[in-house]
């Protein structure tokens, strides 16, 4: 139930009121059906997104640390995924995707109560449904990867137990609420039926949606929920844990860019599940999200290479894959809204901006965001979130914003104008930055007091592999 119904369009409809809803002879909303092609696609997408975390992200990050910390990174990602999956089915799905307040859902489906092989959820097309457990699985993979993204910010120094505790609390207090705010709504048929019912029904149904959804902000696959959210939590963590021993005096070159390249490639592959899967159906719009995810990434990789060529005289492989990831991040919120050419522009733009943060501003400010979670995910996510508000414009090849109330039973596409949409996007970004930044800071503080978050200098010297896990990555 990702956001494709912009509240802006919705409100316009409400204003146009009864008149609007009457104009076309009210057709009945199509009865719910499940297409096995959609189910197949979403199961595959879920597997693809899990592959983004393990081994994708784990390798992407792991290759960038020093040998002595390799396993700690792999372990952190693997363990976070495991813990997040259990938290998700226990209370996460319910908090994110059941009705509650505008800020967080309720506990009616805690421990998947009432969810079984026969229950269904809506997609973005009237009448098209999915087995609910498919949706639970797909969204689970998002809850698994988001906290795992954060670890890059304080890699090579975070303590394992504290990190696990942080994961559980951060998911509960930050991720589930923000996912609810951005993505929860009643679905196309509920809106269509409410529009047909007339009176306050449409306003009521629309009012069930999450707060950011109601703002009219667009986030196709998680620019705010996943990347800005994790990125700012990472920055706060990097600052609060302090720098690694020896940073920035000692050189800390990546121990295996080969692993980083494998990871980046698997991220790219898996991201098709992430973005095109977020369409929930195997149709032409999924193909739009797919091709956008393809070309924005290619453009961003190229653009980072060009920056390096200009600055250092040589394009590096690490640069290319970093650019690719920046492109993937930026296109995430835009993937089902922009057109391919818009996505290419977005990709070309995002890399220089991220490069600026990673290579210039980070050293200037002196914080030690080990693997540039802020510079790539948060900054890239912000660029993408704002750009989405522009690129969705059909005049620029975008898809427009679906309105399910205008002609109940089919979606109509509209665009409220740059000012309106950009303002909605900006508010979504700011709210996410503040919510995630503040709550994360509190969590780091409390957990550090309780169980400790930062490994001792000696443990860092020895490497977290041995000090935290008692094993070595390689015994060649």
């Amino acid at each position: 139930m990702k956001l494709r119904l912009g509240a802006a369009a919705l409100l316009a409809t409400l204003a146009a009121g009864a008149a609007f809803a009457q104009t076309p002879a009210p057709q009945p909303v199509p009865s719910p059906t499940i297409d096995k092609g959609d189910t197949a696609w979403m199961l595959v997408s879920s597997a693809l997104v899990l592959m983004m975390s393990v081994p994708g992200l784990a390798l992407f990050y792991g290759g960038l640390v020093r040998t002595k910390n390799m396993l700690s990174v792999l372990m952190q990602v693997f363990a976070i995924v495991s813990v997040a999956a259990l938290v998700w089915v226990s209370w996460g799905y319910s908090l994110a995707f059941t009705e509650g307040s505008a800020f967080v859902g309720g506990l009616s489906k805690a421990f998947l109560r009432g969810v079984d092989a026969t229950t269904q959820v809506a997609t973005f097309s009237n009448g098209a449904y999915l087995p609910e457990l498919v949706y639970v699985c797909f969204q689970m993979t998002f809850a698994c990867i988001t906290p795992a993204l954060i670890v890059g910010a304080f890699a090579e120094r975070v303590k394992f137990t504290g990190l696990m505790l942080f994961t559980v609390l951060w998911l509960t207090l930050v991720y589930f609420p923000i996912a609810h705010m951005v993505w929860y709504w009643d679905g196309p048929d509920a809106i269509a039926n409410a529009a047909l019912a007339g009176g306050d029904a449409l306003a009521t149904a629309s009012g069930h949606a999450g707060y950011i959804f109601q703002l009219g902000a667009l986030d196709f696959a998680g620019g705010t929920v996943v990347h800005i959210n994790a990125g700012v939590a990472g920055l706060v963590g990097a600052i609060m844990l302090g720098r690694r021993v020896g940073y920035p005096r000692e050189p800390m070159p990546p121990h295996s860019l080969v692993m980083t390249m494998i990871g980046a490639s698997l991220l790219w592959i898996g991201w098709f599940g992430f973005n095109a899967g977020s369409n929930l159906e195997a149709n032409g719009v999924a193909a739009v999200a797919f091709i956008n995810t393809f070309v924005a990434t290619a453009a961003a990789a190229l653009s980072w290479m060009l920056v390096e060529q200009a600055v250092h005289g040589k394009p590096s492989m690490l640069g290319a894959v970093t650019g690719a990831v920046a492109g993937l991040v930026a296109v995430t919120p835009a993937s089902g809204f922009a057109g391919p050419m818009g996505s290419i522009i977005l990709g070309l733009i995002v890399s220089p901006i991220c490069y600026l943060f990673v290579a210039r501003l980070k050293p200037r400010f002196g914080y030690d965001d080990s693997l540039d979670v802020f510079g790539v995910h948060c900054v890239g996510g912000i660029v993408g979130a704002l750009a989405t508000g522009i690129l969705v414009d059909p005049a620029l090849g975008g898809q427009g914003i679906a309105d399910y109330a205008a002609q109940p039973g089919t979606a109509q596409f509209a665009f409220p104008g740059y000012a309106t949409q950009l303002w909605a996007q900006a508010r979504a970004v700011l709210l996410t930055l503040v919510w995630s930044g503040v709550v994360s800071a509190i969590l780091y503080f409390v957990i550090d007091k309780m169980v400790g978050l930062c490994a001792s200098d000696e443990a860092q010297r020895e490497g977290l592999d041995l000090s935290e896990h008692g094993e070595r990555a390689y015994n060649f």
Partner: protein
Amino acid sequence: MKLVTAFIRPFKIDEVRDALTEVGVSGLTVTEVQGMGRQKGQREFYRGAEYASSLVPKTKIEVVCPDALAARVVEAIQVAANTGGIGDGKIFVVPVEQAIRIRTGETGDAAI
């Protein structure tokens, strides 16, 4: 000429190199080695099986220098590599009979 060999902690290599450059050493060679000594190795567990290695990673530095410089080389290493903890390592001095620069064929102190 003397060959000064030191076994030091790996992360000290940059400081030692700088200290040596300061006393006038222009060349040296570095090798990754594993040392046994008083410093305890790590206990590792793999599926419950314990491997208690007595070896810890060390870095070996070899510097050939004129006799006159040897004492200062030794001192520079000793100061720069020191942390005061067990496992700081050792320095050994061995006499060298001849040195040749491959490129030019120069020998003796001129070759170093």
